[in-house]
């Protein structure tokens, strides 16, 4: 009889294992928003720079296929905006309603054009949407102006150097000596990080 005691243990553990797996699977909820695992997804457009469009490059032919999204705050939006632009403030981008709207646009093959008061304001939104895997998101490099109660937009070049730094520095150092190539480049080679550690056992 004694060995029959083992039956309890076996059936007990088997039932527990199956229960745990079942509960895990049933209570499992997929995340609503997922960053895609593709490094080139965002880097490709960044390298080719084709995601930035300027005001002058928009003509009547291409505008019909564009859906403008204004990422400024509703207050700014109410003062004036591009015609037909929809206002989605950056923090609200992941609201189910707004997300659905954006996904619909993607399905209709529209080009989604983001703009803010400056390109920098919309770059975060662009990053987010692109990394979520939404295609055809562009960024309008404009600056919005609000002068004398009228709203207008003007081109805003991205990352333009205001001066020729090297030449300016040469002049600034009064031409006597070329001091600018001052400090030697510091050589820092950090060892590659190891994976986070959790000890291995036998």
């Amino acid at each position, binding site marked *: 009889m004694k060995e029959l005691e083992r039956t309890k243990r076996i059936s007990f553990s088997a039932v527990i294992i199956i229960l745990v797996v079942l509960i895990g*699977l049933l209570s499992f909820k997929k*995340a609503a928003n997922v960053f895609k695992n593709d490094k080139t997804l965002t880097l490709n457009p960044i390298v080719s720079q084709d995601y930035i469009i300027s005001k002058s490059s928009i003509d009547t032919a291409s505008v019909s296929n564009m859906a403008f999204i204004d990422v400024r705050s509703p207050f700014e939006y109410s003062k004036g905006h591009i015609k037909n632009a929809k206002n989605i403030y950056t923090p609200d981008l992941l609201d189910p309603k707004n997300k659905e709207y954006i996904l619909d646009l993607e399905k209709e093959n529209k080009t989604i054009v983001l703009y803010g008061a400056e390109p920098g304001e919309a770059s975060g939104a662009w990053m987010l949407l692109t990394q979520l895997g939404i295609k055809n998101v562009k960024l309008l490099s404009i600056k919005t102006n609000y002068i004398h109660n009228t709203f207008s937009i003007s081109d805003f070049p991205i990352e333009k150097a205001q001066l020729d730094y090297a030449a300016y520095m040469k002049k600034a150092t009064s031409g006597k000596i070329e001091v600018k190539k001052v400090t030697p480049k510091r050589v820092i080679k950090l060892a590659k990080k190891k*994976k*986070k*550690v*959790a000890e291995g056992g*036998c």
Partner: protein
Amino acid sequence: MGPLIPNGVIPFEWNFVIAILIGIVFGYILESSGFSSSRKLAGLFYGYDFVVLKVFFTAAIVSLIGIYYMDYLGLINVGQLYIHPTYLYGAIGGGIIMGIGFVMGGFCPGTSLCAVAIGKIDAMAYGLGIMIGVLIFSEFFSFLEPYFDGAYLGHITLVDSLGVNPYWFIFLFTVTAVILFFLVDMIRKRVKKVFY
């Protein structure tokens, strides 16, 4: 969420406390499955007892399946787990030495400590031998170092180096293990019973 300590769910300081607790349980299980008997361990090589193979294979499969289920459910991130780096030469050399020592002494390092705990004198000699071996290795380390560091392959796993789908790999691995258990059982039945 997991692994818990690297992700800061449990503070780093708990590391050793948890290690001690797991160690106690590990030792208890080793002892209660009879692993402190050197005849049982050596039985694997002579073919009259395959408990060692079964226990460790089962443990590997259970944790493997468990971890991948947890990964699937988002409870643990397999990519963050620590993977022991592979030094090919060192692994081969160490494997040979360990295998010879295993058959001759009848213990592996962990079970020898178990056997010391229950007062076996041969295990104490075995433990002393380990210390001497460590001493010799450390003294000669500068000679052995090129060999020790040779053929470094990084933190790789079978799945990485074979380039297969981990889920299929687990399935095939499990099936192989179960088949192996049955085969091993058949061998055991044919071999003359050894009492120890």
